[in-house]
């Protein structure tokens, strides 16, 4: 069932149970599949629990949510879900080095206990202070990458994100109409563009 997010948001803001139902029907499968792909070390039971928690957070913070862009709500739901997954991994000490990337120059390092500890404290702090609110602090680097993506057309965005997620080029070619043999070149160009964009944004 393809329900508009704006309708879900309106219903949830009105505190209606229909809103809760629509939210679950639209997002539960998506989050489940996404979680299975992105956080393989979480058990399926864990994933289901985290999905429930995600919806509860959405309900609790919906009053603060403002519908600015078409994708805004979906982005928010996925962000909450990912943060909860990462937090669960952290608690189970299954955290990966991707937590440690803070700037363009930092590279993931293994067993970097100091960075790990500081990421951990940062998470603890944020969780108490409205970590899941739509107004929670943004990761500035992520914001720059999102700005860059917003400036791309849909096909280029799909190439960049799809290739980064290792979606087969054949599929990406089908969606975008670009010959499969050219996808890799497109991806390389886009990454180069992104790199330059970030360098400029970081002040050269």
């Amino acid at each position, binding site marked *: 069932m393809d329900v508009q997010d704006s309708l879900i948001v309106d219903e949830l803001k009105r*505190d209606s*149970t229909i809103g*809760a*139902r629509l*939210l*679950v*029907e639209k997002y*539960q*499968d*998506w989050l*489940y*599949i*996404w979680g299975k792909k*992105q956080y393989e070390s979480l058990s399926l039971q864990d994933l*289901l629990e985290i*999905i*429930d928690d995600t*919806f*509860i*957070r959405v*309900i*609790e913070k919906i009053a603060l949510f403002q519908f600015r862009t078409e*994708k805004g709500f*979906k982005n928010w739901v*996925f*962000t*909450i*879900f*990912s*943060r909860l*997954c*990462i937090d669960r991994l952290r608690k189970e000490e299954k955290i*990966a080095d*991707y*937590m440690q*990337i803070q700037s*363009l120059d930092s*590279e*993931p390092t293994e067993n970097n206990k100091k960075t790990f500890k500081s990421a951990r404290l940062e998470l603890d702090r944020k*969780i*108490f202070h409205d970590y899941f609110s739509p107004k929670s602090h943004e*990761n500035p*680097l*992520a914001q720059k*990458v*999102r700005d860059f*993506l917003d400036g791309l057309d*849909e096909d280029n*965005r*799909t190439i*960049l*994100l*799809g290739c*980064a*997620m290792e*979606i087969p080029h054949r*599929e990406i070619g089908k969606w975008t109409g670009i010959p499969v043999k050219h996808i890799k070149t497109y991806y390389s160009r886009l*990454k180069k563009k*992104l*790199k330059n964009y970030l360098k400029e944004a970081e002040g050269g």
Partner: protein
Amino acid sequence: MEEKKDRMDVLLKSLIKMGELPPEDRIIDYLMDLSSEREIPKVVREKTIAKLEKRQKELRDTKKRLQNPAKLNSFGEYIRLIRIKEKFDTSDLATRVKIAKNKINLLENDSISPLDFTLDEMARLIRAIGLKAQIAIELIKKSYQLFKMQPHIAEASARYDDKHGIPESKIEDMGRALKELMLKSSFRKTEPLADPELENYLKDLQDKLK
């Protein structure tokens, strides 16, 4: 041959994993088509919906009662409601205000005298939950009174335990009403509270909160 990963690959992957770059619809649809467990069983879905509806109701009730904190039965009740509303547990609060978790639990149930908290502890607690000093003081008076009446309350509550088949939420409502009733009757008899220890504590607390 595996493609060589550069920094941009790592960055994009990291941001995707951290939920900072949510997926395009067609990517999720593709992943769904790949999955053998596309649909979450209906029974699981209904359970989730029931959980959400319960939380919605809980929030609605809590919000309503928090609209007028001065009318609450005790300081502990305010803490509990704020926790439900903001969804943090006693451990979170205990860590933040540097008070033993057990002490906060007891305070929520009016099973400890507020005077067992140092002035510094109480001030930290009041600030952490964002309660106005005057209202906090009124609620602390009630907590103190309820603590003193605790044996009677426990005795009366025991008559309504689950052996009567009354749902837990109903028992909670009844417990609250009972406390309210006992408070009203006790304040009628003893108002103003003639306990110099409490009066001094509250005076010092007020100074501390200024």
